[in-house]
């Protein structure tokens, strides 16, 4: 398992990293779960989740629905699968983004500033989510001030962004 925590000190640096990751996305599958990339407003929850699956693979809508059914049940989203993004709470929006990335079948899942995606009341839910999900290669990028929120995460080790990009993504720094 390669799970990393990366911290940034200022917003400018974070925006620079986001730009670098957007360049990486063009070359390899890196899934970005971030409030900077909202779910698509004119698609329902299920259409948002199925979008990467039905775009990248020649799979019918119904076959794709069967694949994601289990996750929809697990995250208690079956009842809201036809909702639009404005009917979801912050945590549900984050789960939809995560499922988009999961079915993108990205090698790396990057939670970019997760604390920006939900309000404090979902903090414990987010940690529970991280503990329950079998994330083989994931990265949480957050502000240094939020370091204390991830202190108890045994599976995650702290890493430098440039090292991760160069060694793990095997991409020379795209600055």
């Amino acid at each position: 398992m390669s799970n990393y925590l990366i911290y940034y000190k200022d917003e400018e640096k974070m925006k620079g990293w986001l730009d670098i990751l957007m360049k990486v996305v063009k070359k390899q599958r890196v899934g970005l779960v971030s409030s900077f990339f909202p779910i698509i407003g004119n698609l329902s929850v299920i259409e948002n989740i199925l979008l990467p699956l039905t775009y990248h693979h020649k799979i019918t809508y119904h076959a794709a629905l069967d694949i994601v059914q289990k996750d929809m049940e697990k995250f208690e989203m079956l009842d809201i699968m036809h909702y639009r993004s404005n009917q979801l709470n912050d945590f549900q929006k984050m789960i939809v983004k995560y499922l988009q990335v999961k079915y993108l079948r990205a090698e790396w899942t990057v939670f970019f500033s997760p604390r920006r995606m939900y309000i404090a009341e979902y903090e414990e839910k987010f940690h529970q989510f991280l503990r329950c999900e079998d994330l083989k290669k994931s990265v949480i990028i957050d502000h240094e001030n939020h370091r204390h929120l991830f202190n108890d995460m045994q599976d995650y080790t702290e890493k430098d962004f440039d090292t991760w990009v160069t060694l793990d993504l095997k991409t020379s720094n795209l600055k």
Partner: protein
Amino acid sequence: MKRLITALGQKAIASMHFFYGYFWFTISFFKGCFNPHIFYPSVQLVFLRQIYFTGVQILPMFSVVAVAIGLALVGGLTQYMVQFGAQDAVGSVLVSITIKHLAPLVTMILLTLRTSTAVTAEISLMKMNREIETIKSLSINPFVYLYIPRIVSGIVCLSALSVIFIYISIIGGYLILSFNLNISFDFLIGTIFDAFTVDTLLAFFIKIALGGYFLMSIPIYTALETGNAVTEIPISLLKGMQRLFYAIIIVELIGTFI
């Protein structure tokens, strides 16, 4: 004088900037057409939905407009031509006016009012809300997923609706005024087919292809120029519609010269 020259210069630069950007947009459109993902279910779904919004939902209003124009044209014009003993020229006049000019023009104007405005607003909002960035972050080419299905549906719907317009206006116009016309339906259809030439068909198809492409691509391209403020959406809408009406005039002129 100096102000006038400055204003003209600004206009010229803005126009050149638009043509340059639009040229590369068109190149990207043709490149995207060879992307295998356009045959995948997600893109097909966008295409079918756009066909429904553009070509199916408009049908009731469109039929009424076609019948009204049919009444004025087929009924009125034919009646006058028969009165003046020019019934042999009815076919060529109807082919020239209805098929070559009116059907593509009226359909383009109705689709501009109904669909192009909606597409401009939709893409502007997506751009402003960073939803296009979301699509890119999922390794999805926005040209393939968002723009190509809309542009192709514009071409398909413009051709289908223009053909429907011709049928409804000619048949509807004749049937409603048949009691008043001294020519049979067989004669009317016969003269129309006799007046049909390759040039007419060519002009019709060129106008449909160009018009359909402009109908969606100009609003999309203009929407992509929208900034991050909500106030820029109506400005984009206005700019897009202005550009589209110039494009319609160009299409009409091309059709006239063929």
